[in-house]
């Protein structure tokens, strides 16, 4: 199982396109194309003169472009051995170049050179501390990718769609007897595979046991298929909110009665939901989840508001709407009182009269700090 899809993908893809094997012959059709006569270096990289008997038939029978200059090729080859190509891994992250020391000003032979007397106009190269903050040195594609979805899904309709997909996939695997795959890592699929999963028919009996009918084998194969590394990995996790709503309306809601008492089934569903939605169900809630409906309810429960003002805005809007109640989500300071009284305007006007203050006085704290530092 690949832990992080990022690790092998970028370097593998680059390996195929830029770095070619040196000594042994390629048996790929690409190597079998006719070598161009002129660039000796290129040909030397494709086939070495030391092992002529391993040449592919097409090359051996075809007229070698320069059979006489074997010596030359050998010379080039020696040069190639000295050359060590940059390891492909280093290309994801770009380390700084080796430090070089500039000549002293009086030793420069260029007559046009004039030493700078001020920093103005000189290029800013930054320092080593902030080296990795530059996207050219640390590309976005090299960022850490975890198991769970990056963006936490809070939309109740999407959460329901994710549970349906996870449950159907898990039921398929279970029904096909692939019990060991239930705890494994399943890849994200493309939209067609996603739709195929949702098209499966889930029937639930009175005990909560579910049966899936449809093309199960194809779905199962799609789940456990390992990415080959060369192509772009499918990342389709969830439909859009409108699509999910439409799906919800057409679908029969009986699937929600599916029992999740089987620990293995529950584990697999929760794992898949975590991958699709980024929602982690805490351990102490596991025992209370008995059906798919219970799982949906657990996931849809909104997180506890962090501040009292947020809680009142969401849960007690009647307090905010009362005409004699004024609610401030942030601390009310002396400045706010001055602003409410209109005193701020007067102060600003007086400053403007005396050319002391340009712009509004009520600047944010961060900008004021910058101002004191002389940055702005």
């Amino acid at each position, binding site marked *: 199982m690949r832990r992080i899809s990022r690790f092998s993908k970028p370097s593998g893809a680059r390996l195929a396109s830029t770095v070619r094997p040196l000594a042994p012959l390629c048996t790929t059709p690409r190597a079998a194309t006719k070598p161009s006569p002129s660039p000796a270096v290129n040909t030397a990289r494709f086939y070495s003169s030391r092992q002529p008997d391993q040449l592919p038939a097409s090359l051996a029978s075809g007229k070698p472009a320069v059979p006489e200059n074997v010596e030359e090729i050998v010379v080039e080859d020696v040069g190639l051995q000295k050359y060590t190509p940059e390891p492909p891994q280093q290309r994801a992250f770009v380390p700084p170049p080796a430090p070089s020391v500039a000549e002293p000003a009086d030793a420069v032979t260029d007559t046009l050179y004039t030493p700078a007397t001020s920093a103005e106009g000189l290029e800013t190269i930054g320092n080593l501390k902030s080296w990795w903050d530059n996207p050219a040195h640390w590309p976005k594609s090299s960022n850490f990718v975890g198991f769970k979805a990056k963006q936490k899904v809070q939309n109740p309709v999407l959460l329901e769609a994710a549970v349906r997909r996870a449950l159907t996939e898990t039921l398929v695997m279970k029904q096909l007897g692939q019990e060991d795959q239930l705890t494994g890592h399943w890849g994200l699929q493309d939209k067609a595979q996603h739709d195929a999963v949702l098209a499966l028919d889930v029937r639930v009996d009175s005990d909560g046991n579910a049966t899936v009918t449809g093309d199960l084998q194809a779905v199962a194969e799609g789940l456990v298929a390992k990415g080959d590394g060369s192509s772009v990995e499918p990342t389709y996790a969830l439909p859009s909110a409108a699509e999910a709503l439409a799906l919800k309306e057409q679908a029969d809601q009986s699937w929600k009665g599916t029992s999740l008492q089987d620990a293995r089934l529950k584990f697999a569903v929760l794992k898949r939901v975590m991958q699709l939605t980024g929602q982690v169900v805490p351990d102490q809630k596991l025992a209370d989840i008995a059906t798919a409906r219970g799982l949906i309810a657990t996931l849809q429960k909104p997180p506890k508001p962090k501040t009292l003002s947020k809680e009142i805005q969401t849960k007690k809007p009647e307090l905010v709407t009362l005409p004699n109640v004024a609610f*401030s989500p942030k601390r009310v300071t002396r400045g706010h009182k001055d602003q409410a009284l209109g005193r701020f305007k007067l102060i600003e006007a007086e400053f403007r009269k005396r050319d002391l203050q340009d712009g509004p006085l009520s600047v944010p704290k961060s900008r004021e700090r910058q101002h004191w530092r002389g940055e702005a």
Partner: protein
Amino acid sequence: MTIRALERVSVGQNGIGSFILQCKRLDIHYCDHSGSSRGMNAFIKTHLPNFAKKNPAVEFAVSPRPRKHPVMIGHYINGRQKAICVANMEPSLILKKAELLRDASGDKVKRVNKPVTSINESETWGKDAISNVQSVLALDTNEDSPEYIVLLLPWWND
């Protein structure tokens, strides 16, 4: 002799004819994190909506004051303020404090050690006894009956 009422312009008293609540505004401050505000936060959620609805004459200004004890400050029409720190109090107790602030007059707290408090100015033993006596005599000269004349001596003439 018939009893005649004295003709006087009535002195305005709050509650006679109309009543004006002395508390015009109540500032409510709380903190989201500290434990001393737990009761206050519960009060805002449970009691405040009802209390504010019942007291439309009072303006309620609710705002956080991080890292401080919860406080209620009443502002009164005489320009004074009254603040109560409600740290670690139960919501029901905070409601009582809010009622106290609402009902208060905003005056400084006075020591009351007499069973009866008159709203009228003292006419006899005021600050200046002599001027009081003169005024009483002058009043009585308007009356026809001389037996009403009282001789009031200043306190030092004992």
